[in-house]
């Protein structure tokens, strides 16, 4: 099958890859760009583990055709790290024991970032709503909700 040339911004950097028609963004990120932070949970929109931001908006990368991000900006969990420094959300996740196996964590962090970017002081119900497309097997969600609220509170103090 013919490959298509695809250019987009990946975590602030311009990238160019060749993709097969019909390839989804999750696969393109993991296998062609080597960014393993978006996780493959189900490949069909049921778990949220593959969540990324496209032009600042939350999307499931497994349901996004790679070709549709041409010229756009894609942010993954990888963009949160700043050398050895944790992003305030990552810090809050660690402090609140919001990860056990960690498989849902990249998707949770992206969903939380999308929320706090547009609503820095969310209510508890808004946090629940924001992560409601993400499944977690281990934590019972409570520590994750608390972590997002803590990150929002620490941002308010800063």
């Amino acid at each position, binding site marked *: 099958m013919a490959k298509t040339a695809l250019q987009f911004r990946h975590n602030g950097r311009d990238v160019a890859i060749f993709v097969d028609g019909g390839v989804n963004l999750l696969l393109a990120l993991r296998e062609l760009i080597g960014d393993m932070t978006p996780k493959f949970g189900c490949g069909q929109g049921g778990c949220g583990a593959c969540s990324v931001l496209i032009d600042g908006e939350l999307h499931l990368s497994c349901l996004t055709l790679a070709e549709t991000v041409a010229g756009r900006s894609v942010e993954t969990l990888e963009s949160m790290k700043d050398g050895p420094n944790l992003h305030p959300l990552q810090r809050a996740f660690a402090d609140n024991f919001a990860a056990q196996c960690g498989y849902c964590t990249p998707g949770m962090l992206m969903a939380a970032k999308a929320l706090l970017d547009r609503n820095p002081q969310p209510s508890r119900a808004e946090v629940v709503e924001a992560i409601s497309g993400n*499944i977690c*097997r281990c934590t019972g*969600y409570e520590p994750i909700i608390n972590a997002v609220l803590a990150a929002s509170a620490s941002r308010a103090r800063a």
Partner: protein
Amino acid sequence: MTRHHGRGIASINYPIGMNLGGDPSQALVHSNPSGKFTVALSSIDLGQGMKSVTRQICAETLGVPVEDVYVDTADSDTGPHCMGSFASRGTHRVGNAVMAAAREARGVMMEAAAEELEVNAADLETDGRGNIHVKGAPHRSISTKDVAIAAQFKQGRTISGRGIFLVPLSDVDPETGEMSPATCYAHACLVAEVEVDDETGEVSMVRMDSAYELGRALNPRLVEQQLVGGAWMGVSHALYETTEPYYPNPAHGPRDFVDYLMPGPGNICPHDIAVLERPAADGPFGAKGPGEMCANPVLPAVANAIFNAVGVRIDELPITPEKVLRAIKAQGGARPQPRR
């Protein structure tokens, strides 16, 4: 349509580990020339905290800072044998094995230090900050790093230790059939409050209150994380998830997260947890194991709460809206039970 409120309670007596032919785990501890220690295990950490808790146990036993211990659980082909991470056995079985291995390694470390300081090993103690000194004379001191270097490059000694913890197979008394399947029991009690919709059969969680007696909590935050998360695995087994919805007929099994239901963030409710610490005589530093039992009392408590709410007794899991509705119809309507 009415939403009926119900409350149910359940208590459990939970044996730590299993005993179907003995239940061993091994651990190996050795020092590196940097003065850091490596614990080799085959006991996999799936996020429960096995690495953290064995690291703490090793550091405490060796008398070195926790930062100086690295736990490697990477490979069950090359690591020492372990029965596995299940039955809440990790902290208890593997922790005991690590403790034994660390004790042996500490013995060698103290011998090596004694040789360097030209004193008797029995006169030495660790300060927990990476130094070994003569009791009552802290200035006669050597760092664990210098001891490791001396052992490796001068004395030709391996600072290492082996540990195994085995609960032997319990014999069955031929007369009475009595046996002792476990050496250590944890306990829990949980009260679940639910709401049952008598038109849809849907059950929602209102709140949970629980108490867990689990020996010494070696890492209280990890214990709390297990109890909070594990309770929702219990709720999920009680109300949502199954691989065989029409068991024993395998048809209509779920193939994805759309069919295989689990609670989402919108389904959770407040859960108040009390942890009671009664150190176990044969546990490492008194620990039992909070693992699997964090989910166990939830299922019967939820089933009891549903009975209390609408008077139907469902004994097949998960307790789906379909089962609740059929049972309510069969008895001619909801029959709320008295609250005691």
